[in-house]
């Protein structure tokens, strides 16, 4: 920030300390303003400041924000540059080394050394009691000047996570060598189940325990051994357990190693000291405790400039079907507008504020959906229906079996619904059943559970039921399901005819253009 004469500096903020910036909304008094906030200090006593500026030339605001957006994009998204303590210079990545570390576990299935991969579900290994196990760790450097890994100093194991150094147990090392393509180091060790009681005790159904594996590596040029720790979850089954589905891929973890060059005792050789070694998971965890999101894009331009979040979405985990996750991001201004409108609405429930319609058309922010949906559908004073719900859930339904079959097939990957017999599935079952009793004609129809599930994610059971009833009866959805989908077929028909008409229209349009083109080139 410079004085108007452009020579002296008023203040300076490192880009990595800027958390968020935005501009005033169009056609408001703040139109020519922009603001950003910064954070300093450590996590536990961080200080936040908000800086607001007014520009003499309103058009400049846009340019400034674009500059911000570009600057944000240029700073590497690797959180190591944002959240690690100051010694990591963000501009200079020459001291940052990244590693890919893989972890795999095998079991001696025949007692004679015939090792088989243990199955894995998500990031959880499924182990069986009493089998001798082999832990295999692969370490591969993925960036920067190549460091030579001289040897493995030790392979360690312990139940739990955030385990202290002293609590980890050294495993008998079997081997260390290079992989086939000689790009990564493979360290494997044998693990006698008797030595780790916690990891040899059957885990109760649906629970899992943490386990930490560490390797101490001696790297040329670094005096102290470098310890890579991977934490993972395991479930332990009885020795007789059979597994059907085998996912044999090892789990992988990224590590960021920051080194500092120190005076070397041997001439012509570089010597380093470890400044910091952190795993991606740990970074994620730290990032999660930071509730702030690095937003960098001016509000009015979110369509034209890619946000830094775009890069985040590039993760390797395949999207499971029925994931059903919703973006929780919402810009401050929009929330404020909603806040105003809702406050007005609450004072007089029968008088819906005008701005609600236009706000709703832009999408209702995730956090407000529960309330807004209830208000919009007129469920705020529906005590009767909610009371009735409590009666309905006690009744039997002829569709019980069908519903049961669908419950674990409704958003099966969603955290709230994935657990068999969990809270989510239980509520879903009750709502679907209650509706099938309430509406005898439609009863339960496949697809209904998805609708109920979406509502359940935003509001308690009774309210969700009330809104479901409203949607079905007052918003015409029920008509689609009735009479063998008669209305649905009609709508399909209408859609097809409309498509025909509009396609025909665009065909004619193209044809006319083509004739025009021919004429002009004749």
């Amino acid at each position, binding site marked *: 920030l410079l004085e108007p004469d452009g020579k002296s500096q008023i203040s300076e903020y490192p880009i990595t300390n800027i958390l968020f910036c935005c501009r005033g909304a169009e056609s408001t008094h703040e139109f020519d303003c922009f603001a950003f906030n910064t954070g300093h200090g450590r996590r536990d006593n961080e200080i936040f400041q908000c800086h607001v500026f007014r520009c003499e030339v309103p058009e400049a605001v846009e340019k400034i924000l674009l500059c911000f957006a570009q600057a944000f994009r240029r700073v590497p998204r690797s959180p190591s540059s944002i959240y690690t303590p100051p010694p990591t210079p963000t501009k200079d990545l020459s001291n940052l080394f990244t590693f890919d570390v893989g972890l795999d576990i095998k079991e001696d299935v025949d007692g004679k050394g015939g090792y088989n991969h243990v199955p894995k579900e998500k990031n959880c290994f499924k182990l069986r009691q009493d089998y001798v196990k082999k832990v295999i760790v692969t370490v591969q450097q993925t960036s920067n000047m190549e460091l030579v890994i001289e040897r493995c100093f030790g392979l360690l194991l312990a139940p739990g996570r955030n385990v202290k150094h002293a609590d980890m147990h050294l495993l008998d090392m079997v081997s260390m060598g290079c992989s086939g393509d000689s790009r990564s180091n493979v360290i494997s060790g044998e693990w006698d189940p008797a030595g780790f009681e916690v990891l040899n005790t059957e885990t109760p159904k649906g629970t899992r325990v943490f386990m930490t594996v560490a390797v101490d590596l001696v790297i040329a040029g670094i005096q102290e051994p470098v310890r890579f720790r991977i934490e993972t979850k395991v479930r332990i089954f009885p020795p007789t357990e059979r597994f*059907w*589905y085998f996912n044999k891929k090892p789990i992988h973890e990224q590590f960021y190693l920051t080194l500092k060059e120190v005076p070397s005792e041997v001439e012509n050789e570089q010597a380093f000291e470890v400044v910091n070694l952190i795993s991606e998971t740990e970074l994620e965890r730290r990032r999660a405790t930071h509730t702030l999101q690095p937003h960098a894009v001016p509000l009015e331009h979110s369509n034209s400039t890619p946000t830094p979040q775009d890069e985040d979405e590039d993760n390797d985990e395949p999207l*499971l*079907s*029925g994931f059903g996750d919703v973006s929780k991001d919402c810009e401050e201004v929009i929330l404020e507008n909603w806040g105003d409108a809702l406050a007005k609405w609450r004072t007089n429930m029968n008088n819906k504020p005008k701005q609600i319609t236009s706000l709703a058309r832009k999408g209702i922010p995730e956090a407000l959906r529960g309330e807004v949906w209830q208000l919009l559908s007129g469920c705020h004073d529906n005590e009767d229906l909610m009371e009735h719900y409590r009666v309905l859930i006690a009744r039997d339904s002829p569709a019980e079996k*069908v519903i049961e*079959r*669908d419950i674990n*097939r*409704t*958003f*099966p*990957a969603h955290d709230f619904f*994935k657990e068999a017999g969990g809270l989510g599935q239980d509520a879903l079952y009750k709502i679907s059943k209650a509706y099938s009793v309430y509406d005898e004609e439609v009863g339960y*129809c*496949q*697809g209904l*559970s*998805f609708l109920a599930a979406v509502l359940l994610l935003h509001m308690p059971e009774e309210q969700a039921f009330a809104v479901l009833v409203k949607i079905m009866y007052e918003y015409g959805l029920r008509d689609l*399901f009735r009479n*063998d*989908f008669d209305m*649905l*077929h009609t709508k399909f028909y209408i859609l097809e005819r409309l498509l025909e008409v509009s396609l025909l229209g665009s065909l004619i349009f193209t044809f006319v253009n083509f004739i025009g083109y021919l004429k002009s080139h004749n």
Partner: protein
Amino acid sequence: MAKQYDIIIRLLMVGDSGVGKTCMLCRFADDDISSTHVSTIGIDFKIKTLTIDGKKIRIQIWDTAGQERYETITKQYYRRAQGIVLVYDMKNEESFKNIQKWMKYISDFAPEDVELILVANKSDAYNSERKVSKEHGEMFAKEHRIPFYETSAYMDMNINEAFIMLARIVMKRHKKEIDKQMEHIRLFCREDSDAHIIEKQGKDNNGCCVLM
């Protein structure tokens, strides 16, 4: 761009709700078995390209909702099917009994020359869970002169075999049209050995045979 296939065939999967139609299909088309399949609402489809007897076959498989009330929608897809996979769950006797009902729909709505196979899914079941014996399934299949398979989408048993068998009998049934088309494609090759011409022709002509 060269055509990725020579021939398209259309298959359809029918059977009661929850017998594992979607699971079988995902296993066959994507080699994926995750516990997270959502219930099929209405209709869905997947595509897989295979080489059978030197011909590149694109198999289009339509997956239907098993729930009764969706029948008005799913019935509309019978007409275009060349092969139908009838699926029941060997742990569920009702689903086996209902094969009769599905057969009736097929005779009412599917083309006359449609080929069928009968599949008893969930063969990973323990013996105590099994409600429909292999003999019963086989007998039914024999009566109707259709191939019979016991499969497990979960353990990937017999899934490929079943689908490929159906593809083969569909191809055999439509051998005449296919041979004509293949000859057509081959002729292009002979007329002009320059590969890109074939491609071009292929594009203009779709270079493939769509069996209706």
